[in-house]
């Protein structure tokens, strides 16, 4: 072994002697002489410390009183939000400061007491190796051997094996089977959205409360404007999980100069108006920071950047796939509608999406 074993345990008094009569290592000089505190030698200082501790405990009592009084004295009510907010601030501050004093006072008092008045002379306790003595270990081994022999687990393999055959399935089986009903199988759900051919594009009420559910005509859009869009009917009563549907179907509608669009996106565009999935192909955040000069869409979560002029190709960031385009056209009444559903899964990647 090539560790410096001769150095022994640090601080143990193994001190091999080398030539010249000097030990090979320094020896532990032992504890430094104790220095007394003021309160140990001066009764006045001790009395002072005692009063300080009592004052800190007293502070705690005052803190509790402050807490209880402000709980009853300050109501969080008012005629306007501004008034309520003010009351709330006062209440939170006073309750909190009261609680802080009540706890801090006890703590500071106890610590001060320990530091000034309780003995501060260091004491020594010996350690013993964690390992049992050889006798202990032998005795333990004997017990285990004897016990196993009594149970006969070695002599009766049938019992051992059938027990294993019972326990392993028991710990694995029911747990797995029981979890089956925690949710349905994915089926096609991740690959399809609410959009259907001919479905009208309507204002997303979340981003445009005024436009709630209103259909959109191409003339409503000037070049460079962005509208947050949902499929018509997605918020209707009979839709079972509207949030689940919106999380896949939200769309951004943007009008560009038709010359700025590339070949592929022009096919799904209507007079320079394009619709793209708003759900980031990285991890599904809504992509909605639109830079007018560059025609880039930026995702706020991890800054994936999509270029509208290149059919929403990723030009920076952790996303890989372009935002899927929703092909659009107008219906007989002149409203924008989906020309076809999405042709690929919208949103983040998953194994089966291909």
């Amino acid at each position, binding site marked *: *072994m*090539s*560790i*410096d074993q001769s150095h022994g*345990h*640090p601080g*143990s008094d193994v001190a091999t002697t080398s030539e010249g009569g000097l030990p090979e290592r*320094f020896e532990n*000089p*032992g*504890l*430094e002489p104790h220095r007394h505190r003021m309160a140990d030698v001066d009764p006045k200082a001790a009395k002072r410390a005692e009063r300080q501790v009592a004052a800190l405990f007293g502070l705690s009592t005052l803190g509790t009183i402050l807490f209880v009084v402000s*709980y009853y004295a300050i109501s*969080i009510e008012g005629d306007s*939000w501004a008034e309520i907010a003010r009351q709330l601030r006062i*209440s*939170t*501050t006073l*309750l*909190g*400061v009261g*609680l802080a004093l009540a*706890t*801090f*006072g006890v703590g*500071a008092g*106890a*610590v001060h007491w*320990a530091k000034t008045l*309780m003995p*501060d002379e260091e*004491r*020594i306790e*010996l*350690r013993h190796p964690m390992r049992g003595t050889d006798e202990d270990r032998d005795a333990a081994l004997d017990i285990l051997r004897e016990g196993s022999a009594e149970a006969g687990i070695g002599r009766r393999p049938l019992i051992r094996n059938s027990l294993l055959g019972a326990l392993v399935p028991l710990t694995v089986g029911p747990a797995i089977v029981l*979890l089956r009903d925690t*949710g*349905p199988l994915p089926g096609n*759900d991740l690959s399809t959205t609410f959009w259907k051919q001919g479905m009208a594009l309507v204002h997303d009420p*979340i*981003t445009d409360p005024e436009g709630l559910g209103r259909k959109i005509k191409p003339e409503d859009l000037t070049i460079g404007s962005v509208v947050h869009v949902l499929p018509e009917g997605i918020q209707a009563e009979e839709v079972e*999980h509207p949030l*689940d549907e919106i*999380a896949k179907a939200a769309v951004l509608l943007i009008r560009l100069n038709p010359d700025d669009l590339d070949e592929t996106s022009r096919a799904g565009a209507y007079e320079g108006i394009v619709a793209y999935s708003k*759900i980031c192909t*990285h*991890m*599904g955040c*809504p*992509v909605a920071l639109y830079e007018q000069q560059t025609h880039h869409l930026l995702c706020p*979560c*991890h*800054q994936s950047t999509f270029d509208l002029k290149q059919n929403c190709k*990723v030009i920076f960031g952790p996303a890989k796939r372009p935002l899927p385009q929703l092909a659009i056209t107008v219906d007989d009444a002149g409203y924008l509608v989906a020309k076809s559903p999405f042709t690929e899964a919208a949103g*983040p*990647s*998953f*194994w*089966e999406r*291909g």
Partner: protein
Amino acid sequence: MSTTTTAKAAGNLGNWADERVGASKGVKFLARKIFPDHWSFMLGEVALYSFIILLLTGVFLTFFYIPSVGHTVYTGSYEQLAGQTVSEAYASSLSLSFDVRGGLLMRQIHHWSALIFVASIVTHMFRVFFTGAFRKPREINWVIGSVLALLAIIEGFAGYSLPDDLLSGTGLRIASSIILAIPVVGSYISFFLFGGQFPGEEFIPRLYTIHVLLLPGIFLALITAHLILLVVQKHTQYPGPGRTNDNVVGYPLFPVYMAKAGGFFFIVFGITALMGALFTINPIWAYGAYHPSPVTAGSQPDWYMGWLDGAVRLTPGFLEFQVLGFTVSGNILLPALIIPGLVTMPMILYPWIEQWATGDKREHHLLDRPRNVPTRTGLGVMAITFYLLLLVSGGNDIIATHLRLSINDITNSLRLLVFVVPPLAFVVTKRICLGLQRKDREKVLHGRETGVIYRTEEGEFFEVHEPLDEHDRWLLVQHDSFRPLDPAPAEDDRGVKRPGARFDKVKAKLSSFYFEDRIEPVTPAELEAAHHEHHGGHEAVEGSDEAERPALAGH
């Protein structure tokens, strides 16, 4: 009550307890146990105390919070949201904040102490790592601690997600996408967890059970085991005069430590309460309710999730690819699952990795000074640097707006820096440690500088050095210095390959990586020699590097 009646009452109580449960034995075993004292030992205490604060405030929150995403029309105090349809979880979190007296205070204390909880666990881990407190026999507590740290992050994320506000919902969206990215089974796991598609209606109630029952239960069990081991193995102590590997020097549990540690709990509580009183945290009303459509720019997770967020931001998209018609999202798997795994596995296994390098099977109860273990210290600083760079990357958008730089440039620079800076930090830290060790040697050999300059008759100047007394010297000479292990010969006498020879070679490599650069503590003989030199002339003597010194005989 007079003193005698108090004493009598206490005596009766003690007698009652002893006759029922043998309390006297417990008192004898525990009450005078010695605990060493050092400020850095308080980091673990902070973690324990903030956990207790989380339990207390958390139970209060459960009385008012409703874990359901069922729809309700908001009619509470906050005018801006009046009439909106929101989830019950969100509405109840708002009414807990605005309509329950002390509710906002409790929410804010709960959130602040969650941040303090994770922060103190992490710094406590650093203390344990850099001082070598994880060495035999404390490997189990290192593993328990590592698991606690990981669970704390998950518990914090679960809590953060409960109010169902816009920020927390965005976090869940990301969590669901990470699950979706798992090859083969991802969509199934996600559908089972969420009870269907995202966001679904099941996840918040399930998360609630995990947050208030499952994980706190596991925490309680693990913390209990952690503390029992602490008592059984006794606390480590820093080296110093009188402190040896075979003793504990400090103060008795009763009364000194009980007053100090118990008092410290109330101090931590007081500080956390003050933070909850004065500093707003997680103003969920300002974010609005979660909905998959609206956007939050500049959204940030709680700090302990920031490094993962940063890793996700740095990973380029081309890592996603298709095989046989299936999608493998390397751009998500790598930063969100593989890197955390690669970081945590060596962390958990570290005590054994170092044991291979040292070949040291002894018990260690005296802590290392970080400078005396330069390679370990360097590795630790390297890991911290890596972590900090990822954390910074998680705020790349904020840096960009503040410094008015292009976010692409910042991200690209960080992509480079995460590979370059950590190894650099390792080398620099190791050098600094070796330098400090040399300084220690010099101090032992030539004493401490006094600032008094003398001029000899020959006109030479020298500074008077005051020799260290034996107590001060001890700290600088007490440590072990390891040498690289020699691999045992790969073949036995008859030329047959020994099993395990290859592993031995790896161990030897690891060992020389650790201990190639090495400075040994001053020996009495060296000190003696230095004294002789001083009497000869007063030239400055360089602290000698061990490599230049003839190896001690007999190793």
